[in-house]
């Protein structure tokens, strides 16, 4: 098992290096001259040239690439062309908000998606099955910006049950920053009122973001369970009198979730990109809103940093997914090692 984990970690390295190179290439292909943007409308060519020199944009492209790799490896992502502050700092500042949102969405998706898929499979071709299938098609088809606004209208404006936007009430203020996750930090500070408030703020954006993932997980769980139910070992277990409940849940589900776990890894990428729209609508101070600003102002340093950080997180999540899979199915680790 330890060998398997190390192997998976090593396999992530080339992907991350590729990501560093790719981000550099992309940043040079993007139309728009950041120096010109930064200098403003009234800039003279001399001023633009000066800014170019200041950010190293006048060097040969290969040299810039080497500098880029070295900087990324030392954690130096440069300064934002827009705000002048180090982008690494800004990204780290905002990353926890996005992670909190995506993890919450993933949590909802798994917590509801797996049981729904299981229920559908056990009632194969029954009413529950049809309902779940309808929901899983609907969940993928609904546009998140539309759903977000509908949820806001209903739960925030009409029923006044949940806050409309933001991460916590402005009046309460943020807890002292330890991890950057509001829920964790408010627990650390012993502020239950903030914790509850944070959860209330999290509900609507997390539900909006979770829906496509929920649909995917329900669908994969359903087909996974249906497939496993056909296996000889299920028939054998029935013949020797396994407990009904145990058979339908753990015994079949553990085989079926290997498929689902792979999906979770892939879904994580979709969740982070989905967070861009959701954050914008719910005014969530995460990387999504940050990257929208960066795109508008052609702040390529900021975009690079966001892309790289998200890429690293994605790679880390997928290593975790692989390890989880090996824990669920011991054959996985042995096949590879």
């Amino acid at each position, binding site marked *: 098992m330890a060998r398997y984990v190390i192997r998976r970690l090593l396999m992530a390295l080339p992907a991350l290096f590729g990501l560093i190179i790719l981000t550099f290439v992309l940043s040079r292909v993007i139309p728009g001259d950041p120096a010109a943007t930064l200098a403003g409308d009234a800039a003279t060519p001399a001023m633009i040239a000066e800014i170019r020199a200041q950010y190293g944009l006048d060097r040969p492209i290969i040299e810039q690439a080497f500098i880029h790799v070295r900087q990324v490896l030392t954690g130096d992502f440069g300064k934002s062309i827009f705000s002048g502050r180090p982008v690494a700092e800004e990204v780290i500042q905002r990353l926890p908000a996005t992670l909190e949102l995506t993890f919450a969405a993933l949590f909802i998706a798994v917590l509801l998606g797996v049981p729904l898929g299981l229920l559908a499979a056990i009632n194969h071709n029954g009413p529950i099955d049809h309902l779940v299938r309808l929901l899983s098609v609907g969940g993928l088809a609904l546009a998140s910006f539309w759903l977000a606004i509908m949820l806001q209208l209903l739960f925030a404006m009409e029923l006044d049950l949940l806050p409309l936007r933001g991460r916590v009430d402005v009046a309460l203020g943020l807890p002292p920053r330890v991890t950057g996750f509001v829920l964790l930090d408010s627990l650390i500070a012993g502020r239950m009122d903030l914790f509850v408030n944070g959860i209330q703020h999290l509900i609507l954006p997390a539900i909006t973001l979770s829906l496509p993932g929920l649909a995917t997980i329900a669908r994969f769980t359903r087909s996974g369970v249906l497939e496993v139910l056909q296996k000889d070992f299920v028939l054998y277990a029935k013949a020797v009198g396994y407990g009904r409940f145990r058979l339908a849940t753990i015994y079949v589900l553990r085989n079926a979730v290997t498929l689902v776990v792979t999906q979770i890894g892939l879904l994580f990428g979709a969740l982070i990109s989905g967070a861009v729209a959701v954050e914008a609508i719910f005014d969530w101070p995460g990387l999504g809103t940050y990257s929208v600003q960066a795109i508008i102002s052609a702040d390529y340093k900021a975009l690079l940093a966001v892309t790289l950080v998200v890429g690293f997180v994605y790679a880390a999540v997928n290593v975790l997914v692989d390890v989880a899979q090996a824990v669920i*199915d011991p054959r996985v680790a042995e096949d590879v090692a």
Partner: protein
Amino acid sequence: MSAPLLSIQDLSVHIRGDAGLARILDGITLSVPAGVTMGVVGESGCGKSTLLRAVLGILPNNASIPNGRLEFKGRDLVADHWASARGRIGFVPQDPYLSLNPVFRAGDQLLEIMRKHAPGSRKDHTEKLIELFRAVQLPDPEGALGKYPHQFSGGQRQRLLIAAALACEPDLLVADEPTTALDVTTQREILGLLRNLVASKGLSLLFVTHDFGVLAALCDRVTVLYAGRVVESGLTAEVLRNPKHPYTRMLLACHPDRAINLIGIPGTVPAATQQPEGCRFHPRCPIARPECARKIPLLVQLPDAHSVACPWYSDTLPEQAIA
């Protein structure tokens, strides 16, 4: 005479599928008295697996039992949803590679059966299993509990499953060609093991196979199935020495050890949705008469508990059919 351990009376099983209604089993009568080893033999598609599944209560969802009774120790299995069979009927499946869940430890899977159906604590169960692993000659009996199925060979997995079948101290053992998925030398070992265990524990056995050789080695009595009906039954030695039904005679003639020429039986087992009228064997039978296509033959009782479902059993078969 006391009631038999397992008694099957006039049992029919129908399966509704896309191709229509399949009458897989039609009026099967068979009983396994305590301490008797009964073999059920027939070609693939004759319904022997369905018979087994009916006894174990694992018929597919689209199956129905329109008539007949299944009794185990005097209890109606259908009426009590096989509750009295659980733990009391041990099952050795056909394919040891596919019958254990690959993602659970072997010990946990076997202990789950015992948790439901055997008295005692988990510790008692563990001790009992290790003892059984010794009895089935599984290497490293203590370590076996913590291993996953893929860490055993096919023969070892079949030994595990035999141990599992014995774990709740059943009265009846049911086995579905438990050696077909194994290589020849392992087959011999597993059959030898099964025979010794059945003999030493005085178990009753219901053993399904297409192989007369395996049957002869293991079973006191035999029931021959053809297209969902019993065509012949009796003591194994008697039926093998003196087969009566044309089907049994031709089937035995097909056996590579006995046949001079491998000619087989012309035609194939009819599809379960299109069973012929009258005697189901008549389209392939060399001594069929016109009335065979109309009348369902009754079982004729012969001496020594031998019975045959053919009124013309004393006719000689044409040379080429059994040569």
